[in-house]
């Protein structure tokens, strides 16, 4: 009965109810869209950090990732069960070297990553970010795929010959020629300005580290669960090796992901405070208008608690209606942004932050929490905004209320 009464009451002032409802629907829909886009950015960022360089998990000698000491290497022919784990969808053995890359009169400090092209493509996606030239080929002896910023700085293009100098593991001066195969551009300044992919064999020879690796980078099915998998894989590792997840290699990124949940609540709160005040206003008006009616209802025996419940049910009903339409609209908008999106590269450049890159595009991903949080909070806001008017209605003195015109 109270439900019926509440439902009929909200349609008494049709225009006001529709206005309030549309405000609620639009705010929750926009919120869902906004969180979806926010998640999309975060995913892009995480992907740029992991899928363009680190991988989701990295196996390396203990302590290697702290100082990248050339001598903290391990044999490539170790039998590692982790590589056969069903959650691991790809792996790439790598050797790393820091040194000087030079072309004509230009030189730049660089990071060389010795890789096997077919394996590296299972883990990172630099092959999708080529600006010119092509990716390394398996049979290539001294090809190099270099970052766009670096290519610009050295003024090279595919086909040019580069000199790389570093100190080899035996103390000698390792130096050799590389030929630019391709140039990649990820938007990540750090990588674009200093990263070079070269054939693993070539780098092993240059560094006098035959058959040695610095790390094996893994791709996993569920990147957000990488830390858990890292823990599981650690058991099967030789004692001198460790498995690190992206969160350990990129603590800032981990914090960004963690702070995302907080940011999400802040956005939800700010947007809903505005919506909540609108609902509060509507309900106060609707309660004040019905003062005499509440007085009559109480006179004929309705208890204050029932009056309060009735008003709360009215707000809850509004909440549920706007929830259905708001979530529906929000999901539709998010789906549009997920499949079509908006390209902003004409007016914005990529931003690198916390080791990841925010691409100049608006692109949403659908996550349960991004729909659930706005939905649940919307209902809470409705009940909260309804509580004050409901209490006011319940506290009315019937004698006074009935006299009200």
């Amino acid at each position: 009965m109270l439900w019926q009464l509440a439902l009929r009451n909200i349609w008494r002032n049709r225009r006001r109810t529709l206005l309030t409802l549309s405000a609620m629907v639009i705010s929750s829909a926009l919120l869902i869209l906004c969180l979806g886009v926010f998640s999309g950015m975060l995913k892009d960022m995480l992907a740029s950090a992991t899928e363009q360089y680190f991988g989701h998990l990295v196996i390396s000698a203990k302590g290697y990732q702290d100082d990248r000491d050339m001598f903290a290497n391990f044999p490539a022919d170790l039998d590692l069960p982790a590589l056969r784990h069903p959650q691991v969808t790809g792996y790439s053995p790598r050797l790393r070297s820091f040194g000087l890359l030079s072309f004509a009169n230009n030189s730049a400090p660089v990071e060389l990553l010795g890789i096997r092209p077919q394996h590296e493509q299972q883990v990172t996606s630099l092959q999708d970010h080529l600006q010119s030239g092509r990716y390394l080929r398996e049979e290539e002896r001294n090809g190099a795929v270099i970052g766009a910023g670096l290519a610009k700085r050295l003024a090279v293009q595919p086909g040019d010959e580069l000199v790389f100098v570093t100190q080899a593991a035996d103390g000698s001066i390792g130096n050799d020629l590389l030929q630019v195969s391709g140039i990649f551009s990820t938007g990540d300044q750090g990588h674009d300005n200093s990263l070079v992919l070269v054939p693993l064999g070539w780098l092993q020879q240059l560094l006098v580290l035959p058959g040695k690796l610095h790390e094996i980078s893994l791709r996993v099915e569920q990147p957000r669960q990488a830390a858990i998998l890292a823990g599981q894989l650690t058991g099967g590792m030789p004692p001198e090796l460790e498995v690190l997840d992206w969160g350990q290699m990129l603590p800032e990124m981990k914090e960004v992901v963690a702070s995302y949940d907080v940011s999400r609540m802040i956005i939800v709160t700010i947007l809903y405070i505005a919506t909540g005040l609108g609902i509060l206003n509507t309900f106060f008006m609707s309660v004040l208008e019905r003062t005499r009616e509440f007085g009559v209802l109480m006179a004929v025996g309705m208890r204050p608690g029932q009056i309060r419940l009735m008003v709360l049910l009215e707000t809850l009903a509004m909440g549920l209606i706007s929830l259905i339409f708001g979530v529906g609209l929000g999901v539709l908008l998010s789906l549009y942004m997920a499949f079509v999106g908006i390209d902003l590269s004409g007016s914005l450049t990529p931003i690198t932050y916390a080791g990841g890159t925010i691409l100049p595009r608006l692109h949403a991903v659908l996550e349960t929490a991004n729909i659930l949080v706005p939905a649940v909070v919307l209902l809470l806001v409705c009940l909260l905004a309804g509580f004050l008017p409901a209490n006011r209605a319940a506290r009315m003195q019937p004698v006074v209320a009935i006299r009200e015109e």
Partner: protein
Amino acid sequence: MPILRCFLLFLLLYPATVSAFDLAELIRKVEQQYNGDSSEIELEMTIKTGHWERQLKMESWSLGRERFLVRILAPAKEKGVATLKVDREVWNYLPKVDRVIRIPPSMMGGAWMGSHITNDDLVKANHIDEDYDFTLLEEDERRWVIEGIPKPEAAVIWGKIIYRLQKEPLVPIEVEYFDEEDVLVRRIVFDDVQAVSGRTIPLRMQVLPVEKPEEKTIMHYRKVKFDIDLQEEYFSLGRLKGRR
């Protein structure tokens, strides 16, 4: 500059009378001890790290404080690798790929030839007397202890340098290098003092990084000739490549 020469002579003859005013000159003399107006030196460099130990034989030429050329003679793998410094620029020549590489400013802190000497040492060390202010910390009959603090505007990598100098003959005993946090980073110890080509200099210097006690670089001067006939044109990129 005959007046300066007289002054230096005066310094050498009466070392005990040195005052704060002359400290920079004293350091200049120490820093330039291997260079002279010009020099031709054959040396051995032994580099010891936790992972390997190697010995390089090389020859070097210098003119004034701005021109310097060094070329590796042995081992065979690095034979012909050479470094040229003119003013504040440094180039390396790599015979294996027959390329000259200019060392960019960002790599000046990098190790030179895998040793514990940095490129920056090659370029800037010769200006220490200009970039630092000196104070006399201690003095006794045989030696001075002098502290160098960078001048406010100087772009240098050390936060403090302490020289221990022997008065007679004037040779360095030990130099300590501190970083900006006043932590001792490396020491250079000099010994094997001998008179060669009209000067008395320590023929051996050991560079000892403090953080890695097992590592060091030893430079031992074998043949030293000062004041030879060298022209500025000698220090060219062509010469770097070993061509006449």
